[in-house]
Structures are given as structure tokens and as C-alpha cells.
């Protein structure tokens, strides 16, 4: 295989990864930032960064975790750059109502909104665990935390959701 073929093959493999993982990356970025425009920008920029360091990815089976980590970092950069004020959660809920809507099942819509309202510290590990399927140790590695801290956040996230949705007894809340 000559150099040109190798480059074409590299691009094809990267393209395939982008095609297959983009929906998950976009979903993850949306849950991080709770804003469609921001999610698209972050994923786009992340893919550019990923392409530049694609050669450093030794095992393409780990591409998803690698790309999610790039998205996390890129989101942190964007967040810092734009100095987003996300304190007005009601406004965010209104702005993202189209995504939050779940006309097929009211309970899904309620749960979606309550997750949307969770603090980022709780929301992010929950998304990584339930949606992306990572273990608490893998989440700890991705977030640069101790596993115990991740377990605590996940416990609190579920406790908060149970409380907000009226599923928890008073003493538990």
C-alpha cells in the first residue's frame, strides 16, 4: 500500500467512526450543554481535533471513549470561552422544549425534564453510565475522579430524580 492509499484508508476509517458515533456524541454534548447550537459546535470542533490526533488512537475499539473525552474537553473550552450563564434553567427548558418533548409517553417527558434540571455534576456521570454504558471505574477515568466520588454522584442523581418525580418516601428524600 503506498502513502496515498494509506492516507485514503485512514480518512475512510475516521469517516466511518464519525458517521457511526456522531449521534451519540451529539446527544452527549447536548446533555452536557443543554443547547443544540452549542452541542453541534462542540462536536464539530471535537471532530477536527480528533482528526488531528487520530494517529494517537492505538485501539479503534476505544474510539468512542476517546471521542467522548475530546467532547468533554471541548465543551469545557467552549464553556469557558463563551462564559455561558446557565443559571436560568426555566429559560433553558423553554428553549429546548422541542428536544425535551416526549409525546409518546408523558413519564419519559417528565423524566427528561428532571434530568435536564439536574446539576451538571450529577447529570454527566448519569449520562455516561445509563446512556453510554460505562462502568463507574471507566467514568472515573474519563472524568479524572475517584470511583467513590462517581458512585456518590450517581447515588445522589437517582435520589434527586426519585424525589422530584415523587417516587421516594419522605424519609428517603
Amino acid at each position, binding site marked *: 500500500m503506498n502513502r496515498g492509499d494509506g492516507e485514503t484508508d485512514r480518512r475512510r476509517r475516521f469517516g466511518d467512526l464519525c458517521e457511526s458515533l456522531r449521534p451519540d456524541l451529539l446527544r452527549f454534548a447536548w446533555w452536557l450543554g443543554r443547547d*443544540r447550537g452549542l452541542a453541534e459546535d462542540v462536536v464539530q470542533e471535537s471532530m477536527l481535533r480528533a482528526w488531528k490526533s487520530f494517529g494517537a488512537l492505538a485501539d479503534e475499539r476505544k474510539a468512542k471513549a476517546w471521542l467522548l473525552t475530546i467532547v468533554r474537553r471541548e465543551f469545557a473550552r467552549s464553556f469557558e470561552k463563551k462564559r455561558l450563564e446557565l443559571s436560568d434553567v426555566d429559560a433553558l427548558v423553554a428553549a429546548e422544549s422541542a428536544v425535551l418533548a416526549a409525546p409518546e409517553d408523558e413519564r419519559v417527558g417528565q423524566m427528561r425534564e428532571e434530568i435536564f434540571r439536574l446539576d451538571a455534576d450529577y447529570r454527566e456521570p448519569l449520562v455516561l453510565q445509563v446512556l453510554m454504558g460505562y462502568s463507574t471505574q471507566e467514568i472515573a477515568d474519563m472524568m479524572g475522579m475517584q470511583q467513590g466520588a462517581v*458512585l456518590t454522584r*450517581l447515588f445522589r442523581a437517582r435520589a434527586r430524580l426519585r424525589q422530584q418525580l415523587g417516587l421516594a418516601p419522605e424519609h428517603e428524600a
Partner: protein
Amino acid sequence: MMTCLEFRRRVGAEPFAADAAIEAHRLECAPCARHQDELRAMDGLIQRALEVNPPPRESAAAPAPPRAWRPRLFALAASLVVGVAVAVVVIVVAPRAAIAREVVSHVQHEPGSLAATQPLPPGALHEVLGPDGLRLRRGAGDVTYAMRCPFDGRIVPHLVVQRPEGPVTVLILSHRSIAKPIRFEQQGFAGVVLPAPRGSIAVVGQDVADLDAVAQQVIDAVDWGK
């Protein structure tokens, strides 16, 4: 032996945990077993809730519901003005600025593409255009660079075409439809994105006269297939 508190802390973080200690506690404590079952059921709901499909920004133009607490005409008019302004920014300005930024950024990331001067053989061009069912007829100019590149989360053909006016970079964006032409000038590059029979096509150059005409000739030279 695991206590109820330990059990609930553990399954509160990992509802599907099922090691020996968890199983043993479940057998001995019906309320805790029920609690874990409830958490597992809730996780099913959480998963469904998380599986959102954020629509692309371009379709994010659905207007927000009217705010009932502003009954006065003045407030209504003000809301309309603000709404129209926001809609213009969201629907028109943001996507146009985004595509221009992406195109220029892409060209800047491959500076070597403009340095090539030798026309590529037809086989190399087919390798790049073929996957999208495209062909380039004679008439566009000599193609000196052809690659399939990541752009906007997709892989698109990226060409450099030598024109009498100077080299132009062409990105064929079959996935991205636009309603009308987008023209931009950024960081020394001038560009135009034109609606194409399939999606759109971006043509970027430096000091190229009449870029619209060049872009149109490139569009006309592309065989867009079926």
C-alpha cells in the same frame, strides 16, 4: 454481611449491581429487594429519557409558545420584534456564519492542498467522488488535489481546481442543503456556498475574481448522478 444502608447506597449508584453480597442481601431483605427493583425500573425510564435526538440547528426554529403573562399590546408587539430578531439570528445568521467558518477552517487545516500543481489522474478523482456517486466532467479545470475529508461530522469530497483566475478549493456538501447562496470573506479567503442539485457546494479562493461564476461552472461540471 451488608447492611440495608450499604445495600441502598450501592444500588442507588449501580441499580444493576448483582454480586454475591447484593444477592445475599436481596434474599434476606424484601424491602431492599423491592427498592432495587424500583431503581432498575426507573433506570429503564432514565435510559428512554436520555435517548434524545437533538434536531440540527437549522430546524431549531420552532417558535417558543406565547407568554400569557404579557397581555398588553405593547408587550406583544415588543415580543414579536424580539422574536423576529431572534429568529433571524437563529435561522439565517447563525447557520450562515457557521458554514462559512467551517469551510474556511477546513481550508486552513490543509494548507498543503493548495501547493499541489500536477493534475491528478482520473482514477484518483474517481476514488474521491465515486463513493458519493459523483463524477467531474471536463470544463471545471485541472484537479490538483482530491481527498475525502471530515467535515461537519461527515466525509465529503475536497478538491482543488486550477482555474485561470487562480486555484479554488471545492467542498461538495451533498448532505447540507441551503435555500440560497451564502457569500463570505474570512481571514483572507473569499467564498461562496451555492445550492446544488444535491445539497450544496462550497468554493473558496484567494483573490479570485467573480467567484460566483467559477462556482457555477464547477457545479455545471459535476455529474450529480441520480
